[in-house]
C-alpha cells in the first residue's frame, strides 16, 4: 500500500474528500451569513434552522407533492428564501434601529422555535431522503472509491459559491449591495430602494442556507437538529475568515473543511476541535479574520 507521511494514501484521499464535502457546506453557509451581515449588520442566528428548513422543504415536497430532488433543488431554496424575505419585512426591519443584540436575540429565538416545532412534528431522529437515481452509486477512481453524489455536492456548491461571488462583485445589483454595505443612506439618496435591497439580501442569504440543506438531505438525513449541529462550526468559520469578505467566506469554508479532514487522518482525537483551535489562533493574531478588513 502506498503511504504518505506514514498514512495510507486511500485514507488520506478519503478524508480529504470528506473534508471537501464538509467544506462545501461550510462555504455555502458562511457565504450566506457574510452576505446578510455585510448589508444588514445582523448576525443571523437562524441560519442553521433555515438550512434545516431547506432539507425539510425537499422532504415535504417529496412526501406531499411527489416532487423529487431536482425540482426541489430550485423550489426549496425559493420557498425558504421567500419565507426569509417575509421574516425580514415583518420582523427584522423593526430591529435595524435598535441595539444589534435585538436582531441576535430575535433570530436565535426564531431558530429555537423552528427547531422545536419540527422536533415536535417529526421527532428528533432523522428522516431518510433517497439519493437521486442519476447520482446513485459510485465510481472507482483507481486510488479510491468516489460516491457520485458526494462529487456532485462538491462541484455544484463550488458553482453556486462562485456564481454568488460573481453576482456581488461583478454585476450592477452587486454594486448596489456593496455600496449600500458601505453607506446605505447615500445609496438611498441616489434613488435606490434600499429597503427592498435589504429584503432581497436576507432572502438570498437564507436561500443559500436552504440550498445547502437540500444538498445535505441525502447525505446526513433530514432532521430538526441538523442545523444546530453544523452552525456552531460555521460561525467559527466566519470568525476565521472575517465578516467582511465574500471570497474570504468561500475560501475559508473549503480550507477549514479540508483542515478538519486532514486532522482526522493525522490526529483523529483533535478533529472535532481543530476548527476552534484555528479560530482561537486567528483571533489572537488577526482579530478581524484572515480576509476581514480591520474596522
Amino acid at each position, binding site marked *: 500500500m502506498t503511504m504518505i507521511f506514514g498514512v495510507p494514501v486511500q485514507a488520506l484521499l478519503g478524508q480529504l474528500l470528506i473534508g471537501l464535502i464538509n467544506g462545501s457546506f461550510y462555504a455555502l453557509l458562511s457565504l450566506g451569513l457574510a452576505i446578510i451581515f455585510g448589508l444588514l449588520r445582523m448576525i443571523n442566528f437562524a441560519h442553521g434552522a433555515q438550512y434545516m428548513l431547506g432539507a425539510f422543504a425537499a422532504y415535504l415536497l417529496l412526501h406531499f407533492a411527489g416532487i423529487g430532488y431536482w425540482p426541489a433543488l430550485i423550489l426549496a431554496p425559493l420557498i425558504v428564501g421567500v419565507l426569509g424575505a417575509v421574516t425580514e419585512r415583518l420582523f427584522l426591519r423593526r430591529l435595524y434601529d435598535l441595539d444589534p443584540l435585538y436582531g441576535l436575540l430575535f433570530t436565535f429565538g426564531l431558530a429555537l422555535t423552528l427547531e422545536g416545532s419540527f422536533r415536535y412534528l417529526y421527532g428528533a431522529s432523522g428522516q431518510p431522503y433517497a439519493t437521486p437515481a442519476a447520482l446513485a452509486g459510485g465510481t472507482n477512481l483507481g486510488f479510491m472509491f468516489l460516491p457520485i453524489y458526494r462529487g456532485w455536492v462538491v462541484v455544484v456548491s463550488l458553482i453556486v459559491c462562485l456564481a454568488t461571488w460573481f453576482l456581488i462583485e461583478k454585476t450592477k445589483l452587486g454594486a*448596489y449591495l456593496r455600496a449600500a454595505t458601505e453607506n446605505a443612506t447615500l445609496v438611498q*439618496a*441616489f*434613488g*435606490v430602494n*434600499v*429597503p427592498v435591497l435589504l429584503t432581497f439580501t436576507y432572502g438570498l442569504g437564507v436561500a443559500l442556507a436552504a440550498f445547502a440543506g437540500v444538498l445535505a438531505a441525502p447525505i446526513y438525513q433530514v432532521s430538526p437538529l441538523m442545523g444546530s449541529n453544523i452552525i456552531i462550526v460555521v460561525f467559527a468559520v466566519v470568525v476565521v475568515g472575517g465578516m467582511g469578505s465574500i471570497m474570504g467566506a468561500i475560501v475559508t469554508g473549503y480550507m477549514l473543511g479540508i483542515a478538519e479532514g486532514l486532522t482526522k487522518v493525522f490526529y483523529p482525537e483533535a478533529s472535532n476541535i481543530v476548527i476552534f483551535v484555528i479560530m482561537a489562533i486567528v483571533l489572537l493574531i488577526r482579530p478581524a479574520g484572515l480576509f476581514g478588513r480591520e474596522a
Partner: protein
Amino acid sequence: MPALLEISGLNAWYGESHVLHGVDMVVGEGEMITILGRNGVGKTTTLRTITGILRKRQGVIKLAGRDMMQVPLHRTAHHGLGYVPEERGIFATLNVIENLMLPPNVGKGGMSLDEIFELFPNLHERRNSPGTRLSGGEQQMLAIARILRTGVKVLLLDEPTEGLAPVIVQRIGEVLKTLKERGMTVVLVEQNFRFAARVADRFYLMDHGKVVSEFPVGELPDRMDMLHKVLGV
C-alpha cells in the same frame, strides 16, 4: 425666473438637538446660489434636510411646485434632487466606473459617459481603480460627475473645494461654469466666497440655523468687510 426649489420655515433636529430654526430660501430655475456661514451653523444640515436624509424636520420644501416633505428618501432623486455630500461618499469597494454608474438615471438631459470623460479626463484614466484610491480632487470630480450623469434638475453641492489644491479648485470652478451654461440649477455650500463669487448668482448667509441675509453677487464687494468678520476668514 420661475422658482424651482422653494424652502420656507424649515426646521430640523438631530435627535433632541434642534439645528435648523426656520430656513427660508428660493432658488430659480438655472440659478446658482451659494450658502455661506461659519462652521457648524447648519449648512450641511440644510442640504441633508432638503434631500430627506434628515427626516426629523418641519416646514415646506417644494420642488417645481411639488411638496417634497412626504417623499421617501429613495424617491427624492427621481423628483430631480442630486446630492454631493461634503465627505464625497466615494465607495471603496467599487471602482471608478462602478461609482460613476451607481446612481440610477432619474431624468432626461444627464451627461453621457463621453461628455463626463471629456469634462473629467482623469476619471477616464483611472476608471478601473478602486474609488478611494483617487486623490481628494479626483474623488470630488467623481462625486460630482456621477450625479451629472443622472439627469437631476437641482444639484446640491457641499463644500466641493474643501481641502483641495488651488489648481483643483480652479478646475472645479470651470466645471461649475460649464454646468451653469448648461442651465443646471445649483445650491452650493462654500466657505470660500471668493471662489463662489466667480460662479454664484446670489448668496445666502446662515447663522445659528437660520438665513440672516441674502444678496446678489453684485453686492459682494460692498459686503466684503462684513463677511470677513462674520466668517472669520
